[in-house]
């Protein structure tokens, strides 16, 4: 069963951000959502993640309600090291070590977020979401701060994840869209509309 957002409306401070918005995601593959800043893309992602409730409408098809998210911000716990931040989610040191290796961050395992570069923090945030056992993966500008070489490696990880689950990715980068997306929605708004 595919995941779909049905007739979603949401207003913020009286301003409609989404109005009777519909979107259906495939069972697997990468869907890109691109559009100008402030058109409601991130709000839609938060609605899909269940972080905010719609005024009307619903999201259907997420059975276990397990959703992996790469937020716009890295949202790492500043008092935990890179490894501890990952292990907090995985609860499995072997898996943590494996993902640190995958992300080429083994040497930074015991670094605190304040000691990591922007790109390193982004990779931890990506690893956290990619390794999370989930039904849907939501990525909000997931590759910001990464150089091209790292981006290529991360694309591979995202493609692997998209083999078994739908991935909804918000991005402004046309290269990322060309490289990754199976389906592209061009957004405008608010209220958010796509074509």
């Amino acid at each position, binding site marked *: 069963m595919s995941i779909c957002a049905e007739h979603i409306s949401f207003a913020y401070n009286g301003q409609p951000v989404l109005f009777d918005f519909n979107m259906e995601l495939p069972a697997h593959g990468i869907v890109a959502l691109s559009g100008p800043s402030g058109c409601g893309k991130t709000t839609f992602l938060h609605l899909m993640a269940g972080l905010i409730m719609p005024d009307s409408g619903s999201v259907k098809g997420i059975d276990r309600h397990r959703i992996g998210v790469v937020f716009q911000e890295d949202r790492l*716990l500043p*008092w935990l090291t890179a490894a501890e931040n990952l292990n*907090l989610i995985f609860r499995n040191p072997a898996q943590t*070590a494996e993902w640190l290796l995958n992300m080429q961050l083994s040497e930074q395992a015991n670094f605190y977020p304040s000691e990591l570069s922007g790109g390193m923090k982004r990779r931890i945030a990506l690893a956290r979401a990619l390794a999370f056992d989930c039904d849907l993966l939501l990525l909000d500008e997931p590759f910001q701060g990464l150089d091209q070489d790292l981006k290529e490696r991360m694309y591979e990880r995202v493609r692997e994840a998209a083999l078994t689950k739908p991935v909804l990715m918000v991005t402004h980068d046309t290269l990322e869209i060309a490289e990754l997306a199976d389906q592209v929605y061009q957004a405008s708004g608010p209220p958010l509309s796509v074509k």
Partner: protein
Amino acid sequence: MPDNLQHQKPNSDAQSTEHIKSGSGMLHIAPKRKAGLKRLYWIPVALFWLILWQIVYQFVHQDLLLASPLQVFGRLAELCRQPDFWLATLYSLLRIEAGFILAVLSGTVLAVLTARYAWINHFIYPAVSAIRSTPIASFIILALVWMSSNRVVIFIVFLMVLPIVWTNVMEGIRKIDPLLLEMAAVFQLSRRQIFRYIDVPSVSPFFIASATTGLGLAWKAGIAAEVLSTPANSLGGRLYEAKIYLETPELLAYTILIITLSLLLEKLLVAILQNTGKYFHRHGRIEIPGNLDKKPAVQGENSIESTSEKNNKSGGLT
């Protein structure tokens, strides 16, 4: 390697004796001796104030108005030889700390409740505001009517410290980053994990600040309550007697003792809280298989990280 890792300066307080090679190839010896000397900074400061005190004493030249440092410390030494003095110190300490601990516990519980339920805050806020703006003497006199002098001290300390702990801890709870809580919700962290890894580290700086400020105030309020209620075996009672008999050296000796006790207990409290944080941090650490649990040596100037700097990074109440 990012830039921010290539310029880590060694902690100036470090006790390291490591040799640090600078970019110019010069070998610098880490300043262990300098750090040791730095800790003795208080000696010239203390000497300055003692000399100033002596100058003022000689200027005033009336023992009744101001005793000399020698007279005061001499009197303090005499007092230290009396068992009653230690008994008074012990009882004052117990009363003040009892009030302080009660206030810290109640203030924390109250902060959790008021942060969670706004309606409790509506009820509590006016009372706490009233306590804050009421002169302490009014409470002491009222409390003397209500209870025994021993309990007055505990009650007054409790009353003075409670608002500080309550407001600070509540502020800490309100300042917990909602973005981190959203992350915790998305990745389905347990309530216990959220408490340990988000709530406690977020609130602990506010808690430590309120506890240390509160402890200083506890001594001021507690001694003031003892002066007015004069319970048996109390430093406040001794102060009151010194005032009655115009024993200025004794009055100043007790004052110095109270200041010293207050400062020592504050340092002890901070050490206890920090070590508790470090203990939990150590026991929360994970063992990463393989050779991943070592920080790499960072190349470049001042790249060797001192032991104390590492401890500082992993320290704190986290």
